[in-house]
């Protein structure tokens, strides 16, 4: 059988493109490894309340001591993935796609829904200036942003960040703020004129967290589970859309296969995939192939197909700094167990004179395992515990994102033994900018200092992009055209982060999804016109 479309991967872009095909009346085949949570246990109470009355070893540490991973092993994993319930997200990633990390942190997922199972839930539209290195304008993506907003259910607000985040059409009301965030926001409003004059703006994030019941899913309830459990009904992940499409029989989902490469017959493509259980190879035939395996895995499939073990493809990520904000009058205050684990407030630093725009996500430190913070404190054992108890309730953290840059790019190469080599120098951060950011937060009444700021290693933001860039007129291998079609590889399309050789200082997933849907629309149009031509 020759399928019209084969999609590789079920992450945000794979699912968004599938939705695009389905809405054009096409039933794609999705090839995926597709790991799912091993334990479907759902809690019905606040996680902190549960812990007061129950031994939480199995819940917090895990039978296989999963939560101790970052303590014991040299290769650290993203904090959210240390939960025993989240480990399916990265299950067998090192086996299926071994990577030699040389200064660049590589996180890959072969789960159904991909890394979005553990995402930060923020979804932003891109502005025209943020698409400047692509052949796109934000208006090209507008109908897809609107359609996806309706599909996902995004909370947000019309506020000072609207010029940076785009249209508020279809947004659900914003989520509430914790006490410290409320204070910070009211201080911003009081000093707004001065701050705006200095290019500083604050507002609510755009989150795929339901602020009210929507599309048969319940609204957010403060249960402290969002950093610990997957598939909470009020936090959107692509799995919801995928499961809906599977149930409606609008896509064919073939799991437990790992796509390795493709070959080409006269008028169709053959996708070669390994059965992960038996190790045997399978072939799937299609007219058009859509690669949505994620920036790193898609690049690997392309390099493997070409048997190219020398080319170094660029790879970008956002620079990330973690800025603690201390509110002294909150020392000794009761810990708010009902605050949200995602960002509550956003701050944008628009430094025109430096042509630089940063975005900060402001979060409560309500990660369920308090022991995670023990490692960050410099005191003796008991004193560290006292600080965890009395001092942490006085702290917010800002995840400060920097745009990607050529200066901070890494590279990726496939070795002939199948291992990926991913290299990056430590990112360079402008010290003057860091000082300015610290001064702004002090102006807002929160204590911080450049010396307290921690800079994450390249790759830690997990906003990988740019391996197979989309350009107006591709002239060389590993470039794609405006519709994601790979140079000299007709009918092979890339729809994921690989296409973007610049990522602004904000989560780009929503734009990647909208672009994947746009490309699906284009491919559908071509298929239809071909059929009409034949008829």
């Amino acid at each position: 059988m020759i399928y019209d479309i084969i999609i590789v991967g079920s992450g945000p872009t794979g699912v968004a493109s599938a939705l695009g095909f389905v809405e054009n009346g096409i039933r794609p085949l999705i090839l995926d490894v597709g790991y799912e949570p091993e334990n479907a246990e759902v809690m019905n109470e606040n996680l902190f309340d549960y812990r007061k009355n129950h031994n939480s070893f199995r819940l917090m540490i895990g039978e296989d001591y999963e939560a101790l991973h970052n303590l014991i092993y040299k290769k650290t994993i993203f904090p959210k993935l240390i939960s025993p319930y989240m480990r399916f997200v990265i299950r067998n990633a090192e086996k299926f796609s071994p990577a030699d990390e040389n200064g660049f942190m590589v996180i890959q997922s072969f789960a159904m829904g991909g890394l979005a199972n553990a995402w930060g839930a923020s979804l932003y539209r891109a502005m025209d200036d943020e698409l400047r290195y692509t052949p796109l304008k934000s208006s090209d993506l507008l109908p897809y942003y609107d359609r996806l907003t309706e599909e996902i259910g995004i909370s947000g607000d019309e506020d000072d960040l609207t010029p940076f985040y785009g249209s508020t059409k279809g947004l659900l009301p914003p989520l509430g703020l914790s006490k410290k965030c409320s204070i910070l926001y009211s201080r911003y409003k009081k000093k707004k004129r001065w701050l705006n004059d200095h290019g500083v703006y604050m507002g609510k994030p755009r989150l795929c967290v339901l602020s009210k019941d929507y599309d048969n899913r319940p609204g957010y309830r403060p249960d402290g589970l969002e950093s610990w459990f997957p598939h909470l009904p009020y936090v959107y992940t692509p799995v919801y859309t995928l499961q809906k499409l599977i149930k409606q029989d609008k896509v064919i989902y073939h799991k437990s296969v790992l796509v390795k490469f493709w070959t080409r017959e006269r008028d169709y493509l053959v996708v070669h995939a390994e059965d992960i259980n038996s190790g045997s190879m399978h072939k799937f035939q299609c007219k058009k192939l859509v690669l949505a395996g994620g920036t790193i895995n898609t690049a690997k499939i392309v390099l493997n197909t070409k048997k190219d073990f020398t080319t170094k493809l660029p790879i970008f990520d956002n620079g990330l700094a973690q800025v603690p904000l201390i509110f002294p009058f909150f020392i000794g205050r009761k810990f708010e167990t009902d605050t949200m684990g995602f960002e509550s407030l956003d701050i944008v630093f628009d430094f025109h004179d430096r042509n630089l725009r940063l975005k900060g996500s402001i979060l409560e430190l309500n990660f369920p395992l308090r022991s995670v913070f023990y490692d960050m404190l410099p005191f003796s054992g008991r004193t560290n515990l006292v600080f965890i108890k009395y001092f942490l309730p006085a702290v917010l953290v800002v995840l400060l994102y920097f745009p990607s840059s050529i200066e901070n790019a890494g590279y990726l190469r496939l070795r002939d033994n199948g291992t990926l080599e991913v290299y990056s120098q430590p990112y360079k951060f402008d010290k003057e900018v860091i000082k300015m950011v610290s001064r702004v937060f002090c102006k807002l009444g929160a204590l911080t200092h450049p010396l307290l700021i921690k800079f994450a290693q390249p790759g830690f933001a997990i906003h990988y992009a740019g391996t197979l860039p989309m350009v107006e007129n591709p002239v060389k291998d590993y470039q794609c055209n405006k519709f994601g079609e790979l140079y000299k590889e007709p009918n092979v399309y890339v729809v994921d982060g690989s296409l973007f050789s610049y990522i602004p200082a904000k989560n780009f997933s929503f734009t990647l999804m909208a672009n994947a849907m746009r490309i699906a629309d284009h491919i559908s149009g071509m298929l239809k016109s071909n059929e009409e031509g034949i008829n």
Partner: protein
Amino acid sequence: MLARFDKNMYESEAEKIYKAIFDTEVPESIQKQFNIISERIDFLFNSEEIKKYNKSILQIHDLEALEVAARYMKKLPLLTLKFKIMVYLGETLPENYPKYINENDSFFTGFISLFYSLIRTSYKLVKGIILIVINRL
């Protein structure tokens, strides 16, 4: 295979480390969990590091002081790691919940506790450095 003392060694270290952090006797469940993970991680360290660790567990009474000094002096990495592991394991017990999560609103209590703890940590650091030097750890 690295040389351990015996099964009692694990039990002894669990007792001493738990006591150093929480100032109470180690519950049986934590002791079992600690022993299992200890057996796994010991293979990550060389025999010299294990030897010094064993010496510190057997000979030093104030492990809290020793650990904080070791951290600053970049010594006894196994002790530092086992302290961290015990902090994680200890957090899973409901009776330890109030040691991690502040359930009462009191700026004064919080401030005094932090101030006292800072003085205490300074004392422990100095004591620990002396212990490391005297015992050649």
